[in-house]
């Protein structure tokens, strides 16, 4: 006899701002759609803050010997920029899209654990607030987003900033683990009748694989952060070489989390791209199985590459060789995906709307980021350019050209479903061109700056170094364009939200289940479901004479 009691779906509506009015309900909602939107708002707010920090950095660096910021302030600003963008923008944005769309795409009415869902959101939110509270508590963290000891230890950074960093990230880490637990159990238990694992939309697949990555990666970070906190607050010695500890151990813990984290941020974008490209090319995805299976390969390989962040530490040649090879190997499944996406577009009747534009820009810039990544995996090149702007350029190509473009594509694609209103196509194109052109100006040039030897994290530079001045000015001009692009994006959202709800259920003529209910979906997502026999149930519904091959 199983002890499990199946609790029937509640007849009373779950607390949600949609069911009653009241500010309190913003805090008490457990509705996955509401929480998804709250995640996205959280990400947007921190995106603006992190973007302003980036603008401060680029203003400071636009001219040599700039008097605007002192080195102390600059350290805080670039640390907060990196930490914010990774943990408080890209993470909540991808988790938010997952929270909103995973249940809808698999034909479920809720997440498996709605209260855990709310818990995850509020942990992330609290972590972000704590991180920013450090500004009021005597200075923000200033040891970079990977917070290397011994610099980050109490004797070198006595201000409380780094304590807020550790506590804030522990909380957001717990939130991410909660979200991952929820995603996996939702996918495993709440799929609509007839939907096999091999029939799930690719976005769900990627988030599913991604959740396993999160479950394994964040505990490593949290363990390291707890040790750091104990070092700083309880006088432990974990990462203090002067008293027997090991600073390298922190690097291993951090990057054993940090490199999977790169894929944790990339896989959701891969998933979004795998949804957007077929719909706007009017063709089913090419090589569904390869796209899905290569994510599993990426997830497994991502745990064998972390020490390529540490080539300059002075590991043995065998270690360097192993991590160089594994890092290049991971290019294969990723490249396979890129080829599949290109093959999906090939011969399709492309609808060049904003989501597809971002997807195409993603293909180009993410591939460039991947190529500079391969070059960094070659140990001698890494020794030469590590900790220069070449690395800064690479990481931005992966995080912006990869993850952020994917998230932009997803927001333009799903905005009508979430809000019942279309984002303006004209403003969207302004956003796209300003942002993508600005991005490429800023960061393509930074590759060159890095090769010319400009180290990362310097708060200023002398005026007599060849080309540094011109390259830095152009880099800042690109940043201003990106900033303008984001301003257009915000205006676009604001403008659209003021219009009345007018969007039909399926404005893009897409094929996955999230487009079946009304836009936005009612509190209970599905009163009834269409028959599900293939990967594109809405295509079968619209074309009964020419359905996809039956898979169940």
């Amino acid at each position: 006899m199983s002890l499990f009691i199946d609790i029937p779906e509640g007849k009373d509506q779950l607390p949600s701002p949609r069911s009653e009015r009241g500010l309190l309900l913003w805090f008490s909602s457990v509705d996955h759609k509401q929480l998804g939107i709250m995640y996205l708002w959280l990400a947007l707010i921190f995106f603006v803050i992190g973007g302003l920090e980036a603008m401060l950095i680029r203003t400071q660096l636009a001219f040599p010997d700039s008097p605007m910021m002192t080195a102390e302030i600059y350290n805080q600003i670039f640390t907060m920029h990196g930490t914010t963008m990774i943990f408080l923008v890209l993470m909540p944005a991808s988790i938010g899209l997952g929270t909103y769309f995973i249940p809808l795409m698999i034909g479920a009415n809720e997440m498996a654990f709605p209260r855990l869902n709310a818990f995850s959101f509020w942990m992330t939110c609290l972590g972000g607030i704590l991180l920013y509270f450090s500004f009021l508590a005597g200075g923000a963290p200033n040891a970079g987003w990977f917070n290397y000891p011994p610099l980050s230890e109490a004797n070198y950074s006595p201000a409380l900033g780094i304590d807020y960093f550790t506590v804030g990230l522990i909380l957001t880490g717990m939130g991410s683990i909660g979200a991952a637990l929820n995603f996996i159990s939702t996918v495993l238990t709440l799929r609509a009748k007839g939907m096999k694992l091999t029939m799930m939309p690719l976005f769900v697949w990627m988030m599913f694989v991604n959740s396993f990555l999160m479950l394994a990666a964040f505990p490593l970070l949290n363990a390291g952060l707890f040790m750091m906190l104990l070092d700083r607050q309880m006088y432990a010695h974990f990462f203090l070489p002067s008293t027997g500890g090991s600073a390298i151990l922190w690097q291993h813990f951090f990057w054993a989390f940090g490199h999977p984290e790169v894929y944790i941020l990339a896989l959701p974008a891969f998933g979004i791209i795998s949804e957007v490209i077929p719909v706007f090319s009017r063709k089913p995805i090419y090589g569904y199985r390869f796209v899905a299976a290569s994510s599993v390969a990426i997830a497994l390989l991502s745990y064998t590459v972390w020490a390529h962040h540490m080539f300059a530490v002075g590991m043995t040649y065998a270690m360097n060789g192993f991590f160089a090879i594994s890092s290049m190997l991971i290019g294969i499944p990723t490249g396979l995906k890129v080829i599949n996406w290109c093959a999906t577009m090939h011969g399709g009747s492309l609808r060049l709307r904003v989501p597809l534009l971002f997807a195409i820009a993603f293909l180009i810039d993410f591939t460039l980021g991947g190529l500079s990544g391969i070059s960094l995996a070659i140990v001698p090149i890494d020794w030469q350019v590590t900790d220069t702007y070449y690395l800064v350029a690479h990481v931005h190509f992966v995080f912006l050209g990869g993850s952020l473009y994917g998230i932009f594509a997803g927001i333009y694609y799903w905005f009508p479903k979430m809000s019942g209103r279309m984002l303006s196509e004209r403003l969207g194109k302004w956003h796209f061109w300003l942002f993508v052109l600005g991005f490429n100006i800023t960061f393509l040039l930074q590759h060159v700056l890095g090769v010319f030897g400009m180290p990362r994290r310097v708060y200023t530079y002398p005026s007599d170094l060849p080309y540094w001045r011109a390259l830095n000015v152009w880099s800042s001009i690109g940043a201003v364009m990106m900033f303008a692009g984001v301003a257009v994006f915000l205006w676009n959202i604001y403008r659209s939200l003021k219009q009345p709800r007018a969007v039909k259920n399926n404005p893009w003529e897409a094929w996955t289940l999230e487009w079946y209910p009304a836009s936005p979906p009612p509190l209970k997502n599905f009163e009834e479901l269409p028959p599900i026999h293939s990967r594109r149930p809405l295509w079968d519904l619209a074309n009964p004479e020419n359905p996809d091959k039956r898979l169940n």
Partner: protein
Amino acid sequence: MKDKGRILILLFISSEAFFFIALIIAYVFYRNFSNATDTVAKHLEAGRATLFTLCLIASSGTLILSKRALRKGSEGGYKTWLALTILLGIVFMVGQITEYTGLYKEQVKMSTNVFGSSFFTLTGFHGLHVILGLIALSILLVLSMGKLKDTGRSALGGIDVYWHFVDIVWLFVLTFVYYVPLL
């Protein structure tokens, strides 16, 4: 209907496993791959630790018996074995607390050196997990006496996995922290 609670707890403990692996790696790393000498190990009493470990293992056994009693429909057996599980868990915690106070009297602290740090961090986090488990089991015991019997029962399927997990983690801690230095 698939048991989503069971899936959740299995995923949760696998995530927790990575957390403890990291803590154990730190301890093993400092012992074997650094130049520092382990000054904590000589203060530890492996025999005493084994004795309290037996209590923790026994508590897993009594929890299995309690679940079996519940399956057979014996309310009395369920409650008795559950209470015994909690008692054995408390005995283990008493053992850990007296060990800590003893070590503090001998000036072995978190701040003593890197081995003090990793010993107290590893066993401390394990202890926190035991305390959490004890709280959960106590809630089950309270529920089993009131009107919410059924709720308690379905929760048992998750809490027992967690309790066995905490038990197994301790066996690794015992091996690496108490036994390996004796070799």
